[in-house]
């Protein structure tokens, strides 16, 4: 784990990368990292995220700036641009039920071959997916998701890289930190090792590759 500048943290995110971005609307999103990606101007990104927020906030800004080729997400209702780009074919949108998205990411990070969920049976979500009947009930086989990079929005980190999340900022952040090759966390505050009680650590440092923020 290295504490680095924002520029160094995203230096290896290039055109065509697959990037998980934590947060729920604009809560717990790693906004400094998103802004840096906009400044860098990388294109053709595949973004995996809960939602695409609005055209002028967090993940929505990447979409407004035409940097996203495909998005795998549960909700685009706040961002008319996402719907528009989906309809005119300039951005691919894979809609995934929110709980299924969480489990696909979790299984990607947990070494599982996917999950069996009743969610989406009999709907367009089931299209092209295997249906397994387990003890009389139908389930969809949903495959795991992994990414090249995960961008995590933490509240406090210690110098080792342990992460603490205030209130509802955990959302997709904790599971995404397990499911990418390179994990970059931005944090509001960096404290010395021991500054976060072990029981308050939601993501242990072994998952974090780069840490930015906290004035460093």
């Amino acid at each position: 784990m290295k504490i680095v500048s924002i520029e160094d943290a995203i230096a290896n995110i290039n055109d065509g990368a697959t990037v998980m971005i934590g947060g729920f609307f604009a809560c717990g999103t790693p906004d400094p990292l998103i802004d840096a990606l906009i400044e860098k101007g990388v294109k053709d990104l595949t973004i995996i995220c809960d939602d695409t927020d609005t055209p002028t906030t967090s993940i929505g800004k990447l979409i407004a700036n035409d940097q996203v080729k495909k998005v795998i997400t549960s909700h685009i209702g706040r961002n008319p641009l996402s719907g528009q780009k989906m309809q005119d074919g300039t951005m691919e949108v894979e809609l995934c039920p929110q709980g299924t998205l969480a489990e696909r990411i979790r299984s990607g990070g947990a070494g599982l071959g996917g999950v069996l969920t009743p969610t989406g049976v009999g709907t367009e979500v089931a299209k092209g997916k295997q249906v397994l009947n387990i003890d009389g009930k139908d389930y969809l086989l949903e495959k795991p998701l992994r990414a090249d990079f995960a961008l995590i929005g933490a509240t406090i980190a210690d110098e080792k890289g342990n992460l603490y999340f205030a209130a509802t900022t955990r959302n997709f952040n904790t599971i995404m930190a397990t499911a990418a090759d390179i994990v970059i966390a931005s944090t509001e505050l960096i404290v010395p090792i021991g500054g976060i009680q072990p029981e308050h650590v939601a993501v242990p440092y072994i998952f974090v590759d780069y840490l930015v923020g906290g004035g460093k």
Partner: protein
Amino acid sequence: MTPKEKIARRVACDLHDGDVVNLGIGLPTMVADYVPDGVDITLQSENGILGLGPLASKDIANKHLVNSGGQCVTVLPGASYFDSAFSFVIIRGGHVDMTVLGALQVDSHGNLASHIVPGKMVSGMGGAMDLVAGSKKVIVAMTHTAKDGSPKILDNIVFPTTAIHAVDKIVTELAVIEVTDNGLVLKEIAEGVSLDEVISKTKAPLKVAKDLKTF
């Protein structure tokens, strides 16, 4: 009382003491304003809260604490936070007693359409598909017809399916309708509303309960 307030008040009558409840964005959220006296419920928010409280006023709003609609909220004493995977363990795992959500269309088989108007609006399903798959009871709270007057209660939904055989009850400003294995049953009718009006605005076969009540 507005039609939406009337719907919210009627849905709240179905709450039981001790229920864990998830309220969707918009009209369903208003149900929390009408919880009957003596009934203590726990609100779940799919972004990671048990024990959701009222919206936060500007002076106490905390950007780290939002509900599933992204609004700044408060929590009640005894609340807890968790990540999205755990939140859907609660939702999909059958630990939510009742889900109240809006809909674009509902049909005689309890099928639900709530996330796409073809060619017009794509919002995505968010947590709705998981909520209706996992909750013990699913109530649709919506106006009886769309803004242009077109029917929303149909024999078969036309818009893309959000869930099949998922809805237990439909509450509108005109009626309370139960979804049964034998189709839709009109259980209650709003005060001052005629049976003819309900039937004419419902494009699905409607059985009228013998003990039809008013609300």
